């Protein structure tokens, strides 16, 4: 299941990009601020397919010319489409996660952060032990939606030749001549995965709000 591998790899990267982006957006550093804003505007405004194409073909032509400069007989170099695709998807979902995390960080009670400071925690410790866990609870519902769109974006990487389910279905169609059946199987597989994600997110939300059980 290549799709699940892409999903896992880009999910980890997307969360990392989201955390970096949202901290940059909330920081007082003006340059970091500007870079993060540009990042979210560009990656949320350009079609996913185009981003994937830029990364795949762009990286191929760059690496080829570097290769030629070092070793003139080089024909063609590209990075594995798997990584180009996973990285492009992670950057896109990361830009959405940046906005979500930013909102969630703002939702954390400032009193908690002050308390952490008063206890002598460094700002790095405060970030990872206090702010991230607190904001995570608020961000979860949107993170679930981002995970669903990430899962659906993985279908796009068949276009740059990664052998995932859609690509396999295309191959199978050439043999069986039953395109509807093949593509419907792909659709049902995606439907199954998205359903599992939805249930996992519901369970996670319940788990992260367990300290609220009994209140209200």
């Amino acid at each position, binding site marked *: 299941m290549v799709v699940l591998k892409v999903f896992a790899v880009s999910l980890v990267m997307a969360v990392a990009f989201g955390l970096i982006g949202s901290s940059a957006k909330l920081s007082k550093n003006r340059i970091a601020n500007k870079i993060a804003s540009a990042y979210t*505007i*560009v990656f*949320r*405004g*350009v*079609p*996913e*397919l*185009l*981003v994937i*194409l*830029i990364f795949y*073909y*762009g990286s*191929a*032509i*760059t690496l*080829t*010319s570097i290769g030629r400069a070092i070793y003139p007989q080089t024909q063609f170099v590209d990075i594995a489409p798997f990584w180009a695709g996973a990285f492009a998807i992670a950057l896109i979902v990361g830009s959405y996660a940046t906005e979500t995390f930013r909102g969630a960080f703002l939702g954390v009670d400032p009193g908690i952060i002050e308390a952490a400071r008063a206890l002598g925690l460094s700002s790095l410790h405060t970030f990872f032990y206090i702010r991230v866990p607190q904001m995570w609870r608020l961000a979860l519902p949107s993170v679930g939606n981002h995970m*669903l769109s990430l899962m*659906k*974006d*993985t*279908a*796009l990487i*068949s*276009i740059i030749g990664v052998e995932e389910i*859609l690509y396999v*279905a295309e191959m199978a*169609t050439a043999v069986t*001549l*039953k*395109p*509807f*059946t*093949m*593509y*419907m199987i*792909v*659709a049902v597989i*995606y*439907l199954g995965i*998205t*359903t599992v994600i939805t249930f996992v997110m519901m369970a996670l939300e319940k788990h992260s709000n367990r300290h609220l059980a009994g209140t209200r």
Partner: protein
Amino acid sequence: MTFDIYLIFDSIPKMLAGMGMTLQLLFLSSFLGLVLGIIILLMRISGRWYLSFPTFVYIYFFRGTPILVQIFVIYHGLPQFEAIRDSVFWPILREPFGCAILALTLNSGAYVSEILRGGYLGVDKGLHEAGKALGLSTPHRFIYVTTPIAVRLAIPAYSNDFISMLKATSLASTITLLDMTGAARTIVAKTFAPYEIFIAAAIIYLVMTWFFQRGFGLFEKRMSRYIKQ
């Protein structure tokens, strides 16, 4: 590798031709998707299970699968059945344009009906009761009381969906349509200058996104004018 800035300027006219196709896809399928979304919404809130259950299945399917897969099922998949090849819809379904419109419409219908349902549920119950007390009939209440407020509440989410539709139209390039992404891909295949061409396309998409966002922002302001007074 050289970054040829003039190539960007050279390719822009060709891509603007593709922009026409992109806009056609966008407007036609969002309009049809809006109509479909309203019908689905009415079926869903009707309170009759034989109307609301099919909409549930429909929304579940179209929100749970990638648009690209939906496009492929419709474009490559439907001609598998003889009944469809013989039906009156064949002239539409034979063309990639018709298939792209159909797939995007069905997809956007599912999302739009959910967005409108959110707006509908956000309307204060008291307003509904007030309408009833004033003796308005159910259709009147729906048209004059619920709809204007639900529309106002649904605009932010709808504008997001509209932008995703704009981005989804780029997938039409996978079924041989020459929209902006399709045009860019053909030029890249000829010149092999992916950075210049794709970045030029990305800039045009960004401008379009910005433009539509402004438009929806102004519309929302106008629809909220009752709040300020």
